[in-house]
């Protein structure tokens, strides 16, 4: 008898959890994005306004840029918000997405151990810093995970003409997220390339690390190669099962002047500077 009651409860739970989507009238938008927009708290801060205005629930899947793009290619997301310009353009060119729009940017910085064994703190270009690090064979922690940050790191190495070898001892390819890589650098006295937002939000727990290249804020970053633009792309409706209207509404909303203002204001209270800078077409021509 007791068993039967339990069975009833279990079946009931399964049934209600399955029918959840059908029962409610709320539209769902699947957003695949990078960990930086989610972990920094930006999406939690701005998305409620969208959800209310368009009566849509946004399901955020925060993963590496590589996986976010793959989710779009498989039609498992309606819209993607990522930062890896070359791969975004390829995504559109291959017909997986309809059109890319500028959203915002922040910047990358090179951080390293405070005693700076490779002597790069006086340099202003990341490529010069990378050359010194390789020359000194100082420990360097790479994300190694195909993320937007990793793509940028590889582009910088390519520019120096050096191909770092993960088996060389000083170049550590972690294959982990930004937070974990910063923890590793802090523990192992390593240099690493990071987006400024993630470093700022965690710097209290990283006493062994300091900014080496990129300055204290984005205004002091003189290396144009360290700019980090984010783009939004609706997934091609041909994939089937795509929330086409929702994706279009989302693109129009996130590039609108009001939302752009909210993006620029985010983080100012907590860190004394924005974590993301608005950069949509509507914002630039306002």
């Amino acid at each position: 008898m007791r068993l039967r009651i339990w069975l009833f409860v279990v079946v009931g739970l399964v049934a209600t959890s399955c029918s959840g989507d059908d029962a409610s009238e709320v539209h769902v938008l699947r957003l695949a994005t990078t960990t930086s927009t989610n972990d920094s708290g930006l999406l939690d801060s701005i998305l409620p306004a969208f959800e209310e205005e368009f009566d849509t629930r946004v399901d955020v899947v925060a993963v590496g840029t590589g996986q976010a793009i793959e989710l779009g290619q498989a039609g498992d997301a309606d819209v993607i918000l990522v930062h890896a310009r070359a791969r975004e353009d390829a995504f559109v060119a291959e017909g997986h997405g309809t059109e890319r729009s500028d959203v915002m940017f922040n910047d990358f910085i090179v951080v390293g151990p405070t005693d700076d064994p490779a002597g790069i703190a006086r340099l202003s270009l990341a490529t010069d810093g990378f050359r010194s690090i390789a020359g000194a064979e100082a420990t360097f922690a790479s994300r190694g995970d195909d993320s937007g940050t990793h793509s940028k790191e590889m582009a910088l190495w390519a520019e120096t003409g050096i191909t770092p070898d993960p088996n060389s001892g000083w170049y550590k390819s972690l294959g982990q997220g930004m937070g974990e890589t910063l923890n590793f650098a802090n523990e192992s006295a390593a240099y690493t390339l990071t987006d400024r937002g993630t470093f700022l939000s965690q710097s209290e727990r990283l006493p062994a690390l300091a900014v080496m290249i990129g300055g204290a804020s984005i205004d002091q970053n003189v290396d144009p190669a360290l700019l980090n633009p984010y783009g939004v792309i609706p997934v091609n409706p041909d994939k089937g099962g795509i929330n086409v209207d929702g994706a279009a509404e989302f693109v129009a909303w996130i590039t609108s002047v009001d939302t752009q203002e909210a993006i620029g204001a985010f983080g100012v209270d907590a860190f004394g500077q924005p974590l993301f800078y608005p950069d949509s077409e509507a914002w630039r021509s306002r």
Partner: protein
Amino acid sequence: METLARGFGEAVQLLLEFEPALLEIVGLTLQVTLIALAIALVLGIPIGAALGLARRIPGRSVLVPLIYTGMGLPPVVVGLFTYLLLSNQGPMGSLEWLFTPSGMIVAQTIIALPLVVGLTMAAVQAVDPDLPVQMRALGATRRQIALTTLVESRIGVTAAVVAAYGSIISEVGAVMLVGGNIEGETRVLTTAIVLETRKGNFALALALGIILLALAFITNFVFYRLQLRQGGP
């Protein structure tokens, strides 16, 4: 469906190619898990046997539930604990074992040990309680009694070995945190699977998963052969 088929294809291809990077990952996986298992067995089987035989030791009513809880330790919590232990600011920081295979072995030993102790204890308890009594009457020493009881309970003890090995070869939480998933240094099969999934290389990730399962099967097959040779079913 297409990804699944591609995953199986890539698994076969990877195995046939004997790629050095893959062999290194498989080698490190075996090295870390087998050393951790060996340490857990050397420590855990005597403790489990002692607990199974000595049924009236003080504090048993707390100790046994504690071990049972340990059998379900979340690997990520063990990883976090080991990380803090081995970190620069931690009590064992001077060892410099964080982000090394040694650190990974420490974490996996902590995961495997309660499983070995708990299941050995249960296996020993399942032996006819008259056996130790009769042996004592015949003048056997404690050591002889313990050894004979262990031999009698060998099937249960083999189950302890298999369960402990299964839990550490498949866990990712502890080795990721403590090892750091460094290419060529601390990357094992499970952390490589997480990485390839995150990169969106689903077929390669699946191929690595298939290799992991094959490895677990081969190891268990060896354990089972050993059990057969000892006269188990």
